[in-house]
């Protein structure tokens, strides 16, 4: 029995190992092609670079220059970091307030925010981008307001669910000790929200970092984020530079891989927690 089970486990292991290698192979194929000359990519993408086709880092330099990758990386980082910070801070405040203060207004706010989660982006994209123009939110700072507005539904929903499970006594004790609501929230409640705040931060970071359409419509003509830079290379005039494209894909994946390897544990937990609620 034991020997049979061992064999079975080994067979499964090898099977999954093959699957895992296959699963990652697309990324390696892109990496490999990023070192090949631009005319050797489309026709023979599965061939290793050789003396004739190897071009070193040429694709990287041309890709970075053509799309302005460095500023794109800067805009992506700036928008993601500050939007996520704004979402975590402001929606946790809102969620705490409308969960603790039971009134018709609180209920109304809650359901209105939840409702926005159902509506697909296409419903509001045109009117929202016009609105952003009128209010001068069409820049990397203004777009943070838009992300806060769009992210509010899911974030408040997740925070509210967590806050309901925190016992009231601690907050009441703080009030008796003379804390006003602002002190109570920032000194007592906010530190307790840490685990769920990490979940909210990760879910939103994944969304905002990879988001294409919203930044494209609102700021795309003046400021390119990474997904816009990648798409720009495709949609650009003239013949497509496959070499630059491969290099840019690799450059776009690197920050994600670093983020993932560093925060892996939180990301997988956060996804499981977020999904069960969403």
């Amino acid at each position, binding site marked *: 029995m034991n020997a049979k089970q061992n064999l079975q*486990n080994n067979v499964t292991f090898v099977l999954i190992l093959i699957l895992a290698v296959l*699963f990652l192979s*697309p990324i390696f194929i892109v990496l490999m092609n990023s070192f090949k000359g631009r005319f050797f990519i489309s*026709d023979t993408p599965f061939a290793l670079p050789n003396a004739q086709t190897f071009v070193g880092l040429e694709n990287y330099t041309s890709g970075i220059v053509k799309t302005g990758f460095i500023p794109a990386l800067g805009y992506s980082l700036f928008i993601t970091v500050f939007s996520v910070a704004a979402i975590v801070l402001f929606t946790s405040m809102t969620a705490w*307030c409308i969960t603790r203060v039971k009134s018709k207004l609180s209920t109304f706010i809650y359901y209105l925010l939840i409702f926005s989660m*159902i509506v697909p982006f296409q*419903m*509001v994209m045109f009117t929202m981008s016009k609105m952003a123009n009128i209010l001068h939110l069409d820049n990397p700072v203004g777009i943070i307001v838009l992300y806060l507005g769009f992210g509010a539904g899911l974030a408040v929903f997740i925070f509210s669910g967590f806050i309901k499970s925190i016992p009231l006594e601690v907050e009441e004790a703080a009030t008796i000790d003379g804390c006003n609501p602002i002190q109570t929230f920032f000194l007592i409640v906010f530190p307790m929200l840490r685990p769920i705040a990490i979940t909210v931060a990760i879910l939103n970071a994944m969304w905002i970092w990879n988001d294409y359409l919203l930044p494209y419509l609102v700021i795309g003509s003046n400021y390119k984020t990474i997904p816009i830079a990648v798409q720009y290379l495709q949609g650009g005039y003239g013949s497509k530079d496959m070499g630059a494209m491969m290099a840019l*894909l690799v450059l776009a994946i690197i920050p994600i891989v670093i983020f993932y390897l560093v925060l892996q544990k939180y990301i997988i937990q956060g996804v499981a927690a977020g999904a069960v609620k969403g």
Partner: protein
Amino acid sequence: MQKMPKKYYAFFTLPTIIAFIVAFFIPFLLGIYLTFNTFTTVTNAKWAGVSNYVRAFTENNYFLNATIFTVKFALVSVVLINVFAFGLALLLTRKMRGENGFRTVFFMPNLIGGIVLGYIWLLIINGILINFGVDITYSAKYGFWGLVVVANWQMVGYMMIIYIAGILAIPPELMEAAKIDGANSWQTLKSITIPLVMPAITICTFLTLANSFKLFDQNLSLTAGAPGRASAMLALDIYNTFYGRVGFEGVGQAKAMVFTIFVALIVLLQLRFSRTRELES
């Protein structure tokens, strides 16, 4: 706390509420209003009754095709993604060495954005098709299965994580009892594992359904709707209608409204489903 002075209530809620009103609420209401108008920007709207809705379906058959394409795609994706994800979850919950590493690998594509994913697979799919003298834009069928592959690559890992959480939550006593009673692995799967992870199955089914329905980035980067508009899904068709040609903005907004209703129906169905299950248990 039942009450809070108004100034504090405003302090806590206003930043979110203002952003929400600007980014979502006004654009949403304005969007509904504009479905009944012809316009090129929001300031020159002219009342047009339901003509936009009529035009969405009659002017050409793009929207109808996109709807059929999306429904087919969603059905195929939901089935394949969940079967693969559940299978992987079963394989990765057997206390085998390297399980955590494998989970890490299978989840990773989920973090890569749709635009980048689409171009990665465009290279690979065209690299295979070139041996047959064609590329992905040759037929909508290629685009369809290409999108199915991309959606699987992206979502299988995510759903796998949810299924693993569900499987690990099954009390080990139940499994042992089944073993003692002489159940084989198929019987255990059918009578214990599947019924007990049913909540996860419901969640994953609706999550994949909603995600497949709303797919946009992958569609734009992989096929951009080619050939013609034959492989454009609903979200891409709406985008093309808005920004493809001046004078069709109202039609685009009406299509978006219909799309919103489709998605809302899926969500309502999900709520019904989970409610009944809660009542049963």
